[in-house]
Each structure stands twice: as C-alpha cells, then as structure tokens.
C-alpha cells in the first residue's frame, strides 16, 4: 500500500505548507495568529485531505487496476473501507499527530491543543470517507479535482463547524461535549454507510 516513506510524508508536508502560508500573509500581531490558529489548522486539514483525494482512485483508474478491483470476488465496499482507512492513515492520522507541534508554533494555548487534537482525530476519518465518495463519483472525469471540491465541501462544512467551533467554545471557557458527540456520530455514520456509497459510485461511473 505504501511504496515508500515519501508517500507518507507528502500530505503532511502539504498540510504544513498550507498552514505556514498564513503567518506570511497576515498582519504580524502575536495575538491574531493565536486566535485564528486553530481555525487555520482545521482549514488546512480539510484542504490537505481534499487534495489528496483527487488521486485516491485516479491512477487506479488510469492504469486499469480499478477495473480489476471491481471484478474481484472480495466485497467491494469492504475493500473500499480498507482503502479509505489506509488513505486516512497516510493523511488524516499523520497530520493529526503532527498538529500539536503546529499549534505550539502558533502559540495556541494548551487546553485548546487537546481539543484540536481530539477533534481532528474524530473528524479526519470522516473527511476521508466522505471525500472518497466524491473521488469515486468523479474518477472518470478530467478536472475531477474541482468537481470533487464542489461535491464534498458542502458535506465537509458540518465537520468543520463542529471541529473549529469547539476551539471557540474552549477559548470562551465553555463545554465541548456536544460537539464531540456530533463528530463521533458523523464518524459512526460515515464508517457504516460511506463504503457502500463509494462502492456504488465506482460501479456507476466505471463503464
């Protein structure tokens, strides 16, 4: 699955690059970055996931291995769940693990770091699973990348709202349990349903 370490670090590098563009482009005030840092990290995570998705099935389609998967006796949806989780390990998980370091560079207070970390841990698998549906629907199209974005970003926004919302809550000293439950519920839903949608989408588009 992972040919080499470089494919593992690439989404991470992407994530870091996106996040680091902001310090260069915002007014240099210590407090500003600290206040928006959490949001910036969430946006970077969403973008990094989304961008990595475009290639999730694309080369498989181009070289014909996707067709071979389609006619393999294993359950396609199970295989897709596996593929999505592997993809998540190489994108969402890694960038979640890395996020605390980024938080430190943004001077984000430590109670927020934990919330951000947990939020990303619960949120990024859903991002990948939901995004894979979009990737599967657009795999046969050139310029699928933008269409993926159009399709899946509406579905990402709730996750973003819950995830980034927690940070604002914490900053104001409020509870975040309800948001955590919401993220967990979204995750449960995506794990159970998304694989079927992905498999269905592939069967529809490959012909």
């Amino acid at each position, binding site marked *: 699955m992972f040919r080499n370490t470089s494919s593992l670090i690439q989404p991470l590098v992407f994530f870091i690059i996106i996040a680091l563009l902001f310090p260069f482009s915002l007014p240099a005030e210590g407090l500003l970055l600290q206040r928006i840092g959490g949001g910036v990290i969430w946006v970077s995570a969403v973008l990094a996931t989304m961008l990595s998705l475009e290639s999730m099935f694309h080369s498989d389609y181009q070289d014909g291995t996707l067709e071979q998967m389609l006619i393999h006796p294993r359950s396609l949806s199970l295989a897709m769940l596996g593929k999505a989780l592997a993809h998540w390990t190489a994108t969402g998980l890694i960038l979640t693990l890395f996020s605390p370091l980024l938080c430190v560079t943004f001077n984000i207070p430590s109670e927020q770091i934990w919330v951000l970390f947990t939020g990303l841990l619960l949120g990024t698998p859903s991002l990948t699973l939901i995004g894979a*549906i979009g990737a599967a*629907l*657009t795999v*046969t*199209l050139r310029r699928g990348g933008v*269409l993926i974005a*159009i*399709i899946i*970003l*509406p*579905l990402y*926004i*709730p996750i973003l*709202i819950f995830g980034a919302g927690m940070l604002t809550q914490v900053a104001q000293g409020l509870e975040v349990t*309800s948001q955590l439950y919401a993220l967990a519920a979204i995750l449960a*839903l995506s794990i159970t349903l998304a694989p079927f*949608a992905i498999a*269905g*989408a592939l069967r*529809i*588009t490959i*012909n």
Partner: protein
Amino acid sequence: MNPITIIWNFLSNTYHRLGSPREFYTISRYTTPVFGALFLVLSLIGTYFGLFVAPADYQQGDSFRILFVHVPVAWMSLFVYVVMATAGAIGLIWRMKMAFVVTICSAPIGAAFTALALMTGSIWGKPIWGTYWVWDARLTSELILLFLYFGIMAVYYAFEDRKTAEKATALLSVVGVVIVPIIHYSVEWWSSLHQGVTVFAEGGPKMPPEMLLPLAFMAFGFMFFYGYALFLSMQNKVLDNERKSGWVRALVNNKEQQS
C-alpha cells in the same frame, strides 16, 4: 376483493404507469394544468389574506409579511431535496427510469427555492437583526444546501453518458440528504439568531391564526407549484431522452400536421 388489495393494485398500477416515460407523458398532460390551477387559487387566497387581511405585527410592523414567501420557500427548499433524494434512491434500487428524471428535474427548482429562501431571509434579516448576513447555523446550513444543489447539477452535466450521469446524480443526492435534518434542527442544536421552530412546534403552532392561515395557503400553493414546474420540466426531459422513439416522433409529427 378486500380494500387493501384494491388500494395496492391501484398504487402498483400507477407506479408502473408512471414508471414508463410514455405513460407519464400522457398522464402528466392532464395533471400539470390541474397543479397549476391549484397553485394559482391557493396562492391568490394566501396573498389576499397575507397582504390585505392579516394585521401588522406588533413588533415587526409590516415587515413580517415577508414571512408568507420566506417560510413556504424555505420549507420547499427542504421538501424538494427530500423528494429528490427519495426518487434517487428509488431509481438506484428499482432501476426506475422516471425516478431519475424526477431527481434531475427537481434540482434546479430546489436550488431556486433555496436561493429564494436565502435572499428573502437576508432581506428580512436587515430590519430584524440589523445585518444581511451572519455566519449562523441556520443560515450557513441553508447555504450549504444551495451548494449541494449546485454540486448535484454539476455532476449531472459533467458526464457525457446520460445513464451514468443519472445514476451518479441520484447517488449524490441520496448521500447529501443528511443535510436536511441538520438544517431543520439547527435552530435547536445551536444557539441561533434565527427563529426557532414555530409552526410545527410541540403543543401546536405558536402563531396567531390570522398569520397561520395565509401561511398554510401559501405553503400548499407552493407545493402545487413545485408539482407543476417539475412536471413541465420532466415532460421536456422525457421528450429529449426519448427523441428517437416512435411515440415521441408520432406525437411531434401529429402536432405539426394539425397546426
């Protein structure tokens, strides 16, 4: 024969007749005008009571009269999505051609209703909240719904092959249906500037009858409008899809010779 069997037979009969493009076309030529007429009658009554009869609100003055378009349109934006997703599921599961047509033809109508809800809502928001737009749960989720409608239309037009496009569109609309409860409950789950659930509130509508009545007329009127507009555009789609078939050619040819 027992009544359940009769009803069942009737339902399955209509289902199968509506499932065939040709039958649909024939039937819809009678039902469409009926929908249009019902829409006109109901919405004119609603307008009369809403604009002329209902007294001004003691807090909002006359600005509350936006309610009679905003609320029906906002409800329709959700209702159309539910119809669209249901039809999509039916199409995918039972491979019913006409269900896909319902999904695809509903999307622009739903998008228009959503855009209207956003516009009337923000126009209304200016006097009430002092701003056209806030990034609040109800407003944001409704905006997401608009994007979702756009995404669904974009997917349909992205595929060259019609059958693929239909199925892909149906799948996406089924997946996106989660947004509907989110929009509906957004005012309860998050603190929101937007009005809470008023009409379908527990313990009956929290709204005086002189407001509720015209609202109901408008709401049902818009429902029929949706039916009307949907059937018109479905007729076009059916003609377009079946342009090579004999019955469409006969139909067009006859028209031409009569005129």
